[in-house]
């Protein structure tokens, strides 16, 4: 196991470098951040040159990238163009987005797995067909549509919630945005649990458990569910990364000042250090989540051996 972790971590390095380089090239080589800083006015050439020098923008792109990479390993993500360190923005934004993602994950686990178990144990019944059609509908409605409609109905028309989340984003205001963020994945969790449960319900060990006289509930919870949830857990793991990216849309709708909001501001103002810094962290979260899933898989299913 230890050797496998080391190998996987080593494999992550080229992927991390490739991905961040791709983003870096797009942001720094295609856009011109110094011109953007001056808006519509033409910048004073001397000032522009000084700024380019300060941000290493006068060097070739690969060299810029290496300089950047060297700095982030010491925890220095550079300064946004207004002088505020990017790490400071991150310290404000990431806890909010993590809270939002946590709310979403809880919804996925509680509602998704419950619905999956109900339908998986009642395949072919009306409740199964109904939930299955419902998941198809939920998957089809894009998150920004669900979000806007929920905001209109619950926030504006019926006035149950505040339509916009306050800057501190306390947990109770994140419940609706979290549910909106979770919906599509929730539908996938339901379908995955249902398929997995139905597949395992025919397994020999279930028949044995029933034959030796265990109560139905115990067979379902201890034997069937435990084995069926392995693919679901791996899906939830990969979903952590997806949720962080999905928060871009949800945060925009509900005006939550998290990662998506900062990234959005960075892009609109062409604030390149902010954009590259946040994307780098998001990619890292994504890769680590995938690694964690693979390791978790071995813990949950003892038949899998990596060495």
């Amino acid at each position, binding site marked *: 196991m230890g050797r496998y972790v080391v190998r996987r971590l080593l494999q992550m390095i*080229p*992927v*991390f470098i*490739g*991905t961040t380089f*791709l*983003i870096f090239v*797009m*942001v720094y080589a*295609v*856009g011109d951040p110094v011109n953007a800083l001056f808006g519509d006015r033409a910048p004073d050439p001397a000032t522009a040159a000084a700024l380019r020098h300060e941000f290493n923008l006068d060097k070739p792109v690969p060299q810029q990238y290496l300089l950047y990479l060297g700095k982030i390993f010491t925890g220095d993500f550079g300064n946004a163009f207004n002088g505020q360190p990017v790490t400071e923005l991150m310290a404000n934004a990431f806890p909010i987005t993590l809270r939002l993602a946590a709310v979403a994950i809880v919804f996925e686990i509680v509602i998704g797995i419950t619905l999956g178990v109900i339908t998986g144990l009642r395949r072919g019944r009306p409740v199964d067909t109904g939930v299955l059609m419902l998941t*198809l*509908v939920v*998957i*089809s*409605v*894009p*998150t*920004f*549509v669900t979000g*806007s*409609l929920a*905001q*209109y109905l619950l926030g*504006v*028309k019926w006035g149950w919630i505040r*339509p916009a989340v306050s800057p501190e984003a306390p947990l109770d205001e994140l419940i609706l945005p979290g549910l909106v963020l979770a919906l*599509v994945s929730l539908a*996938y969790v339901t*379908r*995955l649990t249902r*398929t*997995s449960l139905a597949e395992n319900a025919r397994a020999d060990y279930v028949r044995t458990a029933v034959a030796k006289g265990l109560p139905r509930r115990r067979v379902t919870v201890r034997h069937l569910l435990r084995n069926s949830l392995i*693919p679901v857990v*791996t*899906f939830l793991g*990969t979903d952590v*990364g*997806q949720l*962080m*990216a*999905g928060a*871009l*849309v949800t945060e*925009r*709708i509900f005006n939550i000042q998290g990662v998506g909001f900062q*990234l*959005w501001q960075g*892009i*609109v103002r062409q604030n390149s250090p902010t*954009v590259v810094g946040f*994307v780098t962290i*998001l*990619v890292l979260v*994504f*890769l680590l989540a995938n690694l964690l899933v693979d390791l978790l898989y071995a813990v949950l299913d003892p038949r899998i051996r990596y060495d």
Partner: protein
Amino acid sequence: MTEPPGMSGPAIGGPGGAMELAATEGETLEGGAQPPAGRGPEARARSLWSDAWHDLRRNPVFIVAGLLILFLVVISLWPSLIATRDPLSCSLGHSLDSATHGHWFGYDTQGCDVYTRVVYGARSSVAVGVCATLGVAVLGSLLGGLAGFFGGVWDAILSRVTDIFFGIPIVLGGLVFLSMTGSRSVWTVVAFIVLLGWPQVARIARGSVLTVKQNDYLLAARALGAGNTRMLVRHILPNAVAPVIVTATIALGNYIALEATLSYLGVGLQPPTVSWGSDISAASSGMQFRNAPHILVYPAAALSITVLAFIMLGDAVRDALDPKLR
């Protein structure tokens, strides 16, 4: 929005292999007349494709989705069939007016007829969805298939490259990449989706080709002197293409949703191109839908129904082509 693992099966090479064996006994692949082989109650064995078609025709989900998609394609080709006005001729005097006779969906902020814009919006969604899917399917299966077939160093390079692209969540990539482009048309968005979408198909195609490659009939074909081209076109392509088709069909609906999401975020299609995503974005900005919900509801409903139709189609095609799920 990726399909969870284990839901699309790469094991489709199995029955496909049986089909190919039958086909090499002197029959053309497409010809329905294949030698009898006591499978199922029918006297004649059916290929994977005719079997799938047989299933699809009886699937109500497929029929509903198919009719909806047919309708969408027709109105995106000839929107004037059901909408006589010009989507870009608007008058601010009607701004946010609600529905009146002849304007069933009311007017939006700019005073444009919402019904006309909803009808014309189908064109960009369908165009982006279809073109992006075709691009992703062709590029992905070409690169993935060839890497799987030839193996070696190309395969290793491709695997690393797909890993890199998988590290970028697609909405995040869209926000960064597309915001750097000045003016965006349907083709810019299509190009972006193809650029970030092909690794998904390449992975499926590679796996599928690797499965098919192990079949005996490929060894037989090689022994009979078949060259690489013949092996690829006559033997591998027909047997390995099913998982790619399944993945691509499901992806089509997701790409339409993606285009709308990107347009909503302001990095997708730009005016004067009519897009449901941009219209929903315009309706939501500053909560203009507060007093005029119709400017939000109609484009949102049109978009959701369209995506639903394509996802239902994908679901039906997967059920028909993946024998494991039967």
